[in-house]
């Protein structure tokens, strides 16, 4: 099945697969949509990254996903690549996936005879591996809209600013109370484990005390222990640990600065 083709066509050219039959789903307009109904945001799997970046509803109620989509490749890839494809490819370094983790996304998977809803945390099994069955496809991505006091940020480290694969990335979403008091939050790291991972120990610290500079530095140090990166062609495990820690710290600083400057959305 081919949508944007940014992964599928590359794999074909590299000889990793050569399907006898391609099913081109790119033109199915019914699967390309962004809407809000019954208190949830629905995103069709064929929605492109450019669609996401430009959509005002998502800018307001899924800010972290918009930021992540902006970091995917460059304009060409954002125009071609679809969110369903980014999910289905299941790369541990996929940029939109950590954002969908902290937003608590649920995927609708359909075959001709069945339909099931699967929370994102149960969907990915390993690099390139998901629980998607042979004749199933992703038909809807459902996310709860962010509240007025909920703010998110996506931070990425790549070899250069545009068009690069993540060495480490992190998505953060915080539910803020008065001043620097955080009422709840989620943190998800990419490219530091076989799948995207939630940093649950860091998350537990978010709500203990107001997020002072000292607490933020501590949370960064906890992240260093919580991630489980490997050494590969892009970076060493030690570098990834250091960067995971720094990205989280920087992300939290930036997010709080935004909160203090802009307040509720």
């Amino acid at each position, binding site marked *: 099945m081919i949508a944007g083709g940014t992964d599928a066509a590359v794999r074909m*050219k590299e000889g990793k697969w050569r399907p006898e039959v391609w099913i081109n789903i790119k*033109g199915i307009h019914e699967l390309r949509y962004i809407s809000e109904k019954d208190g949830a945001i629905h995103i069709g799997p064929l929605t492109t990254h450019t669609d996401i970046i430009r959509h005002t509803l998502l800018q307001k109620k899924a800010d972290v996903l918009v930021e992540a989509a902006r970091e995917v490749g460059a304009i060409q890839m954002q125009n*071609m690549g679809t969110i369903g494809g980014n999910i289905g490819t299941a790369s541990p370094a996929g940029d939109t996936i950590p954002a969908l983790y902290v937003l608590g996304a649920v995927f609708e998977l359909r075959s001709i005879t069945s339909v099931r809803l699967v929370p994102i945390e149960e969907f990915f099994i390993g690099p390139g591996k998901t629980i998607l069955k042979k004749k199933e496809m992703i038909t809807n991505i459902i996310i709860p809209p962010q509240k007025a006091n909920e703010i998110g940020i996506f931070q990425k480290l790549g070899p250069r600013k545009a068009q690069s694969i993540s060495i480490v990335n992190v998505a953060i979403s915080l539910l803020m109370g008065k001043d620097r008091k955080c009422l709840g939050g989620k943190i998800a790291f990419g490219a530091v484990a076989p799948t995207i991972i939630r940093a649950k120990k860091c998350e537990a610290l978010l709500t203990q005390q107001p997020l002072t500079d000292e607490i933020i530095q501590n949370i960064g140090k906890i992240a260093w222990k919580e991630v489980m990166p490997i050494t590969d062609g892009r970076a060493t495990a030690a570098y990834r640990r250091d960067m995971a820690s720094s990205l989280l710290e920087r992300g939290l600083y930036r997010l709080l600065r935004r909160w203090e400057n802009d307040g509720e959305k």
Partner: protein
Amino acid sequence: MMRKILFTVNDAPCSITCHPAKTLLDVLREDLDLTASKECCGKGECGSCSVLVNNEVVCSCLILVGQVENQNVITCEGVGLTPHLDHIQESFIEEGATQCGYCTPGIIVSAKAFLNDVDYVPSVDEIKTALGGNLCRCTGYSKIIQAIKTAAEKNLKELGTV
């Protein structure tokens, strides 16, 4: 399995009979003799194969021709040909923004898509973002960026006189 595929290239209807999994880039170069778009990295990192599909810039080396059935494709040849060059192409010549020329058609296509959307002279940072998917290994980009600025100025001047 060969199939007949209909689409529009540079505003002209086009009918091609080939395997639908042939890349759009190969069809443009081999079947239609439109050789401006180039294959370089072949995996969507360099932008040498950039074309517009329905006015959005994409990598033609990763699109299968079956996927552009009934769609509208514009290549660098469609942006302008001598003597009717686009402002972007004129500016590239004036500013000396080309060296080996391999990346130039892709950059011109990206610049075209970008300038279609702006009605002011863009900043250097905006141009850099718009060209993030196009690599040039000769020029160091400053002349390319200047050429796109010059083209934007020409576009504005023309708008002002209409």
